[in-house]
C-alpha cells in the first residue's frame, strides 16, 4: 500500500505573531494600575533578548513535537546541534502516513502543531515573567498534542477494487 506524505509547514512569522499577541493581551488584562513593570515584562516583543528566548522555546517545542510524532517521521539525519532557530526560516516536517490515513484531518494536524508550539513557548515565557499563568499554557499544549495525534490516527474505510474481467 502506497504511503501518503503530509508536509506540514509552520510559518515562523505566524508563530511569533501569535505568541506576541497572546502575551500582549495577557499583559493588558492583568493591568491593575500599579504593576506597569510586570505587565511590560510579560508582553513578549521584538527586542533581542525577548526574541532569543522565544525562538529558543519554539525550537525546543518543535523538537519535542517531532518526538511525539516520530512514529510518522522518516529521517536519515546523522548530525544534530543546539543552534537556536532563526526568525527567517519556517519549520517544516514531513509526516509519512499510511495509505488509509484520513486526509480530511490535515488542517487539524497543522493547526494543532501550531498551537502546541505557541502554547509551549508561552508557558516557558510565562514561567519567567508571569508564573501564575504558565501552568495553564502547559495544560493547553498537552491537549494540543493529544489532538494532533488523534487527527493523525483517523482512518478511512478501505475501498474494494472491482476486479477487471
Amino acid at each position, binding site marked *: *500500500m502506497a*504511503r501518503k506524505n503530509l508536509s506540514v509547514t509552520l510559518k515562523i512569522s505566524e508563530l511569533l505573531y501569535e505568541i506576541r499577541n497572546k502575551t500582549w493581551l495577557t499583559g493588558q488584562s492583568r493591568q491593575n494600575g500599579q504593576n506597569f513593570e510586570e505587565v511590560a515584562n510579560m508582553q513578549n516583543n521584538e527586542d533581542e533578548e525577548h526574541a532569543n528566548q522565544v525562538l529558543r522555546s519554539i525550537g525546543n517545542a518543535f523538537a519535542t513535537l517531532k518526538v511525539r510524532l516520530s512514529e510518522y517521521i522518516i529521517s536519515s539525519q546523522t548530525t544534530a546541534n543546539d543552534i537556536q532557530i532563526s526568525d527567517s526560516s519556517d519549520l517544516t516536517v514531513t509526516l509519512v502516513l*499510511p*495509505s*488509509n490515513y484520513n486526509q480530511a484531518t490535515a488542517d487539524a494536524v497543522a493547526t494543532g502543531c501550531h498551537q502546541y508550539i505557541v502554547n509551549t513557548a508561552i508557558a516557558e515565557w510565562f514561567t519567567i515573567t508571569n508564573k501564575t499563568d504558565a501552568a495553564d499554557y502547559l495544560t493547553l499544549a498537552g491537549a494540543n498534542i493529544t489532538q494532533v*495525534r*488523534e487527527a493523525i*490516527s*483517523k*482512518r478511512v*474505510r*478501505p475501498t*474494494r*477494487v472491482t*476486479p477487471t474481467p
Partner: protein
Amino acid sequence: MPCCCKKNVQTKTVTLVFKRSELLYDCANLGFVLGDTMRTEDEHDRHQVQDIAEDGNVDRVTRVLNLTISKVREALYPYTKVEAENGESRIDTLVEVPYYTIEMTVPEKFSKTTQTYLENVIHELLVDRVMEDWLSITYPEKASIWRTKADESLRQLNIAKNFRMGKKLRPLHPW
C-alpha cells in the same frame, strides 16, 4: 507395483484461486470496523487495528496467508499431494503472490458445489487466521473470537473434502 484397487479410479483436476487483493480488502475492512467499534478513547490503539493491511504490517499478514495456505494444502493432502524432488532446498524469503492457488486432483464424483463450498470456506479460513494473528498483537481480547471462527472454518473444510455426488464404493477384495 501400484495398488490394483486404484487402477480404475477416475480423477479430475480442479484449481481453487484466491486473489490476494480480495483477501487483503476483507482483512482491512474487518480491521476498520473492529477499530471503529473499539471501546477506547485512544486513537492510537484504534488505528493499529485498522492499519492491518498497511506497509510493514502487511508483511506479517503475508506470512500468515502463506502459512495458512500451506496448512490448507496439507489438510487437502489426498487431493493436493505432490512428490518432493530429490535435493530440493527451501528458503524462507517472504513471497508475495497476487494469487494463491490450490490445485487438486479429485475423484470423478467430486461435486462442483463442494468445490464452491471449499472455495468459500478456505477464503474465510484465510481471513480468520489473519485476523486472529493481527488481533493477538493489537487487540488481544478479540483474538479468541477469530481463533474460534478459524477453527470452525477448518473443521468445515475437513468435512467438505469428503463430500461425494454418489455412493462411495469400496472395491471388493477376494480375501
